[in-house]
């Protein structure tokens, strides 16, 4: 079938489906969950269909899509290969929370393509084999380099894959309301049908389809919102105004002087912001944080005290105790009543009954009222409810000191965070932090560098440039990749700004009983919460508790007043983003095993069919391993692992690849040692920092690549200089890679049906 026709049909189908779903929603037939099901089944069915149409067992097709993917389509495929669940769902939220610091992700995840275009892509395409270890093995003359390359590629990709499958599980479970673990495996099916049947060819065309879904899903809500607020449907231009307003309201919330130097009209701000109440709420959070801190200073005794208090309470609620208390209260009341009604003594002077002392009377009345109140608390229903509450609290109490420590530390951090109120969204990272202990600017720039260099070293992205028909197309394909990625990345900060603005103007100052509908619906899902800390019935900014910043992207359709169908579309986009990245990674890992390890090292005489077959079997095995890690291990580390994958790639593959092409003197032993040292430094720093808070110059585990790549480059250069220069054949090989002339040419595909 004609390629363009298929893609055209697919896009039309998706638009029609969206419109039909929206109509059904207005007719009241479908709710968000039903819409979720339809979108998910439809998208997975389409991906499976593409997989079936493009099924292949030809190695060139299976590994590099027959080198027939033109620059623009390869750009789109790379775009969705690249943009993961983290980019799609979480990045805008990260910007919402981190402000200027969050721009590290925007810059880092785009600037790496410049390195890719200038230093690597065209040369790898000229080399023209199938994988990254292929290049390392050839350039550094032997299996040792290839094996190290395989280990690095697998380690980097598996780290990243686990994080992706974690994302798949979260989205699927949120999408159709099933638990997380089965969600991971259902999502996995969607990944497998496609890559298993058609390898790189199927993955490429599925990714093109997925790109179209994900970019429209991302852009529609925020374009709509921009049009609604400013009558200009270009959010990337209009959110500048929003940034100005955010700054003013932040200052108002924090009670700073001269909050509005530019005299922004009050009607676009929020006159219900009350600095005094904000401070009251913040102080209460600070108190709570201090309470947890005190508990944490002596966990064992605090835990024992909590337990004793609850047990005492439970004991006091036992039936006989309650009966005793009731009896005591009844007696007290009866006594008071009796005293009230008792005949008063006769005044010897007037011979009249004495008037009761007013104060005494009041006291007795109060006593009776108090007894009544206490008795009302002791009705059987009340007692039962109290008992259940106490039992629950007792059961929820941390089982041991270890658990208590984790729980209370989390609670302390959360409360301390609320107590901070709002920072300055546009503040730039200072050179030295206020407490003088860390260097935020260094962390910021370091993270940017790690993400950029890591991008250029990720094997699943590098392999994509093997699939273009020529070196020339590989060059412009990087440009197209970045262009398609750019469309999403330069929109993400607009999402964050609009969401922040919306929180300031439509949430702060409203009554706790009448929350905006988007807050209510995402509160139910558990992404956010509103806690009326000072009990005034009004929402302060400090009362707004963010549990997952993912709400920024997920809630925007509702903020913009779009139907739930669009929310469904956004989730379908998130799923497409997660699946396409997982696809690319899975293929890279399976190929590293089957092509690089099995065919190139273990059994070079393996037949073409058996190689592809083995690759397919490994694909399933790796997928199951990845999914099991994501579903059952659930380490807190998983969230951090995305950034780790970049640092690992930056410290191992990137230096060896770049020097291999740009410095002919680079020797095999140097590259091998460099990769090992780089990876070892980066990994051990990540672990030491994440688990044991060890640090150098306050660098965090996410910036471990800064140390790793420095070490790798140093080792490669020094060892190269002291080892004998590579022989003539290898130097010639480097030469040949540098010039496009003589590259094996692929033929651009016009259709995707049948085996080529």
């Amino acid at each position, binding site marked *: 079938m004609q390629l363009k026709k298929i893609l055209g049909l697919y896009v039309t189908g998706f638009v029609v489906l969206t419109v039909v779903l929206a109509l059904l929603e207005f007719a009241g037939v479908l709710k968000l969950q039903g819409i979720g099901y339809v979108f998910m089944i439809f998208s997975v069915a389409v991906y499976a269909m593409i997989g079936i149409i493009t099924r292949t067992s*030809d*190695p*060139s097709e299976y590994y590099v899509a027959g080198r027939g993917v033109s620059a623009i389509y390869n750009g789109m495929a790379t775009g969705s290969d690249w943009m993961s669940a983290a980019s799609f769902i979480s990045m805008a939220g990260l910007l919402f929370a981190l402000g*200027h610091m969050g*721009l590290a992700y*925007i*810059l880092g995840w*785009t*600037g790496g*393509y*410049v*390195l890719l*275009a*200038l*230093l690597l892509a*065209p040369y790898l395409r000229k080399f*023209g*084999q199938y994988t990254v270890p292929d290049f390392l093995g050839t350039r550094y003359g032997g299996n040792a380099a290839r094996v190290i390359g395989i280990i690095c590629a697998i380690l980097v990709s598996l780290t990243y894959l686990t994080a992706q499958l974690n994302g798949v599980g979260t989205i699927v479970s949120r999408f159709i309301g099933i638990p997380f673990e089965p969600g991971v495996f259902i999502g996995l099916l969607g990944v497998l049908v496609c890559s298993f049947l058609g390898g790189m060819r199927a993955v490429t065309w599925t990714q093109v389809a997925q790109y179209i879904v994900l970019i429209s899903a991302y852009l529609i809500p925020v374009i709509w919102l921009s049009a609604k607020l400013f009558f200009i449907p270009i959010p*990337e*231009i209009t*959110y*500048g*105004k929003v*940034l*100005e307003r955010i700054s003013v309201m932040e200052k108002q919330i924090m009670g700073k002087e001269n909050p509005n130097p530019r005299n922004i009209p009050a009607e676009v701000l929020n006159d219900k912001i009350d600095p005094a109440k904000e401070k009251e709420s913040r102080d209460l959070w600070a108190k709570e944080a201090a309470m947890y801190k005190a508990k944490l200073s002596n966990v064992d005794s605090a835990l024992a005290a909590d337990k004793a208090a609850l047990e005492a309470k439970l004991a006091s609620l036992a039936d006989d105790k309650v009966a005793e208390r009731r009896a005591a209260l009844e007696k007290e009341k009866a006594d008071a009543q009796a005293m009230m009604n008792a005949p008063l003594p006769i005044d010897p002077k007037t011979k009249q009954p004495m008037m009761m002392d007013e104060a005494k009377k009041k006291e007795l009345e109060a006593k009776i009222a108090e007894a009544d109140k206490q008795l009302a608390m002791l009705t059987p229903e009340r007692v039962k409810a109290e008992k259940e509450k106490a039992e629950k609290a007792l059961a929820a109490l941390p089982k041991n000191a270890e658990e208590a420590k984790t729980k209370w530390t989390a609670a302390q951090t959360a409360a301390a965070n609320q107590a901070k109120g709002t920072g300055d969204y*546009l503040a*730039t990272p*200072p050179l030295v932090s206020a407490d003088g202990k860390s260097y935020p*600017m260094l962390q*910021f*720039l370091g993270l*940017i*560098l790690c993400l*950029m260099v890591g991008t250029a070293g990720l094997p699943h992205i590098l392999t994509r440039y093997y699939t273009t028909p*020529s*070196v*020339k197309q590989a*060059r*412009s394909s*990087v*440009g197209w990749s*970045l*262009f398609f990625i*750019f469309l999403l*990345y*330069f929109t993400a*900060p607009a999402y964050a700004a609009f969401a922040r603005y919306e929180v300031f103007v439509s949430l702060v100052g409203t009554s706790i009983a009448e929350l905006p509908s988007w807050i209510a619906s995402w509160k139910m899902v558990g992404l956010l919460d509103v806690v009326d800390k000072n009990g005034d019935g009004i929402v302060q900014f400090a009362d707004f508790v963010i549990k997952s910043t993912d709400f920024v992207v997920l809630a925007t359709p509702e903020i913009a007043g779009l139907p739930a169908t669009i929310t469904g579309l956004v989730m379908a986009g998130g799923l497409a983003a997660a699946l396409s990245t997982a696809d690319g990674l899975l293929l890279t890992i399976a190929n590293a095993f089957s092509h690089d390890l099995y065919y190139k090292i273990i059994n070079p005489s393996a037949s*073409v069919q058996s190689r592809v077959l083995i690759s397919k079997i490994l694909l399933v095995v790796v997928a199951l391993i990845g999914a099991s890690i994501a579903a059952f291990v659930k380490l807190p580390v998983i969230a951090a692992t995305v950034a780790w994958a970049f640092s690992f790639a930056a410290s191992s593959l990137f230096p060896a690849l770049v020097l291999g092409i740009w410095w002919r003197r680079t020797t095999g032993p140097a590259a091998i040692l460099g990769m090992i040292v780089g990876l070892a430094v980066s990994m051990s720093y990540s672990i030491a920092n994440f688990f044991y808070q060890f640090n150098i110059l306050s660098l965090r585990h996410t910036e471990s690549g800064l140390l790793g790549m420095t070490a790798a480059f140093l080792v490669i250069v020094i060892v190269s200089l002291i080892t004998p220069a590579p022989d003539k054949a290898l130097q*010639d*090989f480097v*030469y*040949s890679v*540098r*010039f*496009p*002339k*003589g*590259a*094996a*040419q692929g033929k651009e595909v016009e259709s995707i049906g049948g085996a080529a």
Partner: protein
Amino acid sequence: MAELQTKDAEMTKVDFDQQKLETYWKENRSLVFTMLGIWFAVSYLIQFFSGAINSIVIAGFPLGYYMGSQGALIVFVVMIFVYAKKMNDLDKKYNLEEEGE
């Protein structure tokens, strides 16, 4: 498939005019260094001074924030296409283009 691989191996043995290749590579290298300089400036230098240039506000955007969220990205995209174009011209100039296009 096997055919393609032998062809690959032959390609690497093509005898190039050493002198011509050296100058081609030199031109490429200086182009790459210029580009890397721009890349470094827009991503690191500007961000290092973002606090200072934030006092310049355009359409609501403080300049430092704008460069980090949009400006640098636009420069990146344009730069890659410019580099691709220049390299294709360079290939032509030194008659090093790929065959078959």
